[in-house]
């Protein structure tokens, strides 16, 4: 796919997007999400389709080829699937305009979500899609602020909070609480990329007392901590996390001492996939970041890109609209993504 000459605007945009991902220029999930939405907008705008059915085919085809290049970017895939669901929903709504929908578990069993009639025309659907995409953009941009505004309910005076990994959401969460409460934050460095340094610098500027520790000191320090608050890269369908490396051992340490683990994330990070799928194993990032390859040429150096945290270790999810336990995540996924009954994957 990348060897084709970029003929259309969409392909140019795609090329740019993939390069930015590779060079790690897109720093936060929000930026990645916004870039993905721009990409979809271009695709919908440029490709030739007349009915909803054709548009769905185009999107599904692009998705398959795109995610062969970037199998680990779950958030991009989520947004893609969200858009597909929106198209299907709109078709269903128009089809069943006069019927009332019983949106319950039993109702879903007896109703067919597969839309038989995907014949919405281009003219009808396009404005709806553009509106839907701008809604997604608004949600992406406002997610961090709405999660942060909930922080005052979870952080109390004179607490010790522990955080780890690079997360814009958690940073905003803590900064918002810092305006109203005095508490202490302990940040783990998170080798090899040392994200903790940046976070601790930003938090200290916001007026918090921050202590920076090494990764190896996590189990030691955590007995003095009241709550652990982390962000995540994405959330699997069973409530498990795809988080920064080191989060699993942090979660185990927190469980050992019975300290609550709170995960702050926007709803768009919820993914209908499971960890057990083979394309979900952690890819290995450049080993040079860990140990210079001049050290010994034939040495295996491992640098996993993410950690899987099972749902039993997570106590609470704070989303932009709701707060749930990991066990309820399935319902949110049901509402967000469409189910294809003839395919074995969520789609």
């Amino acid at each position, binding site marked *: 796919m990348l060897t084709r000459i970029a003929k259309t605007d969409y392909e140019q945009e795609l090329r740019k997007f993939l390069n930015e991902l590779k060079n790690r220029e897109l720093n936060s999930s929000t930026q990645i999400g916004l870039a993905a939405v721009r990409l979809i907008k271009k695709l919908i705008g440029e490709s030739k389709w007349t009915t909803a059915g054709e548009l769905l085919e185009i999107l599904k085809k692009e998705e398959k080829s795109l995610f062969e290049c970037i199998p680990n970017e779950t958030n991009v895939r989520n947004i893609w699937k969200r858009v597909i669901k929106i198209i299907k929903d709109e078709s269903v709504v128009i089809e069943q305009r006069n019927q009332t929908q019983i949106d319950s578990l039993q109702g879903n069993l007896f109703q067919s979500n597969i839309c038989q009639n995907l014949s919405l025309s281009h003219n009808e659907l396009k404005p709806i899609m553009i509106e839907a995409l701008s809604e997604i953009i608004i949600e992406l941009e406002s997610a961090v602020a709405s999660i942060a505004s909930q922080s005052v309910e979870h952080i109390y005076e004179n607490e010790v909070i522990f955080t780890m990994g690079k997360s814009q959401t958690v940073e905003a969460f803590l900064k918002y609480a810092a305006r109203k409460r005095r508490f*202490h934050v302990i940040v783990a460095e998170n*080798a090899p990329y040392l994200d903790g340094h940046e976070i601790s610098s930003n938090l200290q500027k916001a007026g918090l007392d*921050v202590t920076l520790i*090494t990764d*190896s000191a996590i189990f030691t320090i955590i007995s003095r901590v009241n709550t652990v608050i982390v962000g995540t890269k994405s959330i699997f369908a069973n409530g498990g996390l795809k988080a920064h490396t080191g989060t699993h051992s942090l979660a185990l*340490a927190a469980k050992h001492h019975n300290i609550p683990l709170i995960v702050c994330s926007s709803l768009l990070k919820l993914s209908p996939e499971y960890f057990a799928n083979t394309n979900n194993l952690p890819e290995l990032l450049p080993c040079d970041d860990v140990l210079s390859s001049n050290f010994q040429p034939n040495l295996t150096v491992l640098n996993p890109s993410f950690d899987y945290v099972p749902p039993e270790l997570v106590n609470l999810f704070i989303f932009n609209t709701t707060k749930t336990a990991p066990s309820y995540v399935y319902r949110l996924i049901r509402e967000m993504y469409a189910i294809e009954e003839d395919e074995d994957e969520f789609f």
Partner: protein
Amino acid sequence: MSSQNNQSQTSENQTEQQKSKADLRRERRVKQEEQRAKKATTAASTMPKKSSQPEKPVSANLKQDDAKTSHNVSNESKNKDLVFETAPVKLKLNRKEDLAESQSFNTKPKLFHHFEEYKRDYSITERNSLENSSIHPNFLKLGLQSAHDLISCSNSRCIGFLYALKQFIIDLKFPSNSSKTLSEYIESKLKPNINFLTQCRPLSVSQGNAIKEMKHIILHLPVNISETEAKDLLVEEIDKFVEEKILLAAETINKYILADVNSIISGTSYAQSKISDNDTILIFGYSNLVNRILIEAKQRFQNIHVIVVDSRPKYRGKKSLEKLLKYDIDCSYILINGISYIMNRVNKVILGAHALMANGYVMAQIGSSQIALVAKAFNVPVIACCETYKFADKVQTDALVKNELGNPMDLLKNENKAMQNEKPFLAKDEFTSQIGENLNLLNLIYDVCSPELINCLVTDMGMLPCTSVPVVLRLKNRDSTRTGLKNEPIIRN
């Protein structure tokens, strides 16, 4: 120095009571300056040519027994040809940059104020007059090497201490007119050396136990013994300690783990080796005991795979890696944040220990308890290895009640050569100013692992559960009170 000051003050008060207090103070100050200048010139004239350090009088901070007697005896007890290593001098000069930086930061976080401050941000030798001090050059060398982290392994520090002690005893000259007994004399001479070592770096448990043992032996020297006989005896005891408790202990631990059928271990045979062929073994950091086990295992079983886990800021695992690769052992390398990724492929975890507490807790390099926890979650057995001389009578339940702090500025260094151009965020100039009041760096050195996370403890007394530590201590105490001087082999009940 302070006693001399007092004398001058009282004499002045008696003779010149007419003058005002301010005048008296001025005169006193002038006199002190003169005395100091005098001392500096005399010291400079007798200084060996190789040393290039400025001479300063012994500061009042340095706790010494008798300032006067030490000055008198120091010239006799030391070798006239003082050979100064050039290495310590170079190190001191480099640290001037560290000195400027670290003095302006107060990086101890409020939550951890009970920890002893990391005091090594000044040059120890600047405050000491090397010529007139009573510190033996071997102890000086050991102290500087510990302070600059050239020797970090607890076994090496203990052996270094014992060999310095050996040389110290050989060089010691007992004056015939001394009022003390030989034991008392040796102890008083030894005290400032040990204080110096403690100043350089707090003593490790292994060194503490060795000191206790040696003091016990010195105290129980027979009264009528001659100087040469006493020296021979002490040197023999030191050699025996190193030979039996450190070197032989390591071999015995090896034999317990690898179940060498040809070895004789009190008639019992451990038929099954704890390491099998095609095993994947996980180790953490650097421990020469564990490295030795792996090297021998490689010689027995050709196909073992070792995963070396490493952590910041010291990256001690790299040393392990170099050593293991020399013996052609198949290795992988990963940082501690990635242990969840590989733990399901690991067969066993072998940890080295710095010390063992009397309540069964294992004191080891920081990060070890985290590895043990993750191993337990994945059902991987954890084996801890420790010689019995490192068993301590202390109790500790977690690593925060008592710990040693490392240099907090180490967190700002990135020793990974591949990323040398990228300094850690906080090390960049615009952000270093943030470190201080609200932003603190914590660099702990030790970790305390609870016994429920350790499956087995291998010592030179056998394979024990962690709860057997007080039993071993009781046997050792009974043994030493019974024999007094010569240690008989420990008989197991």
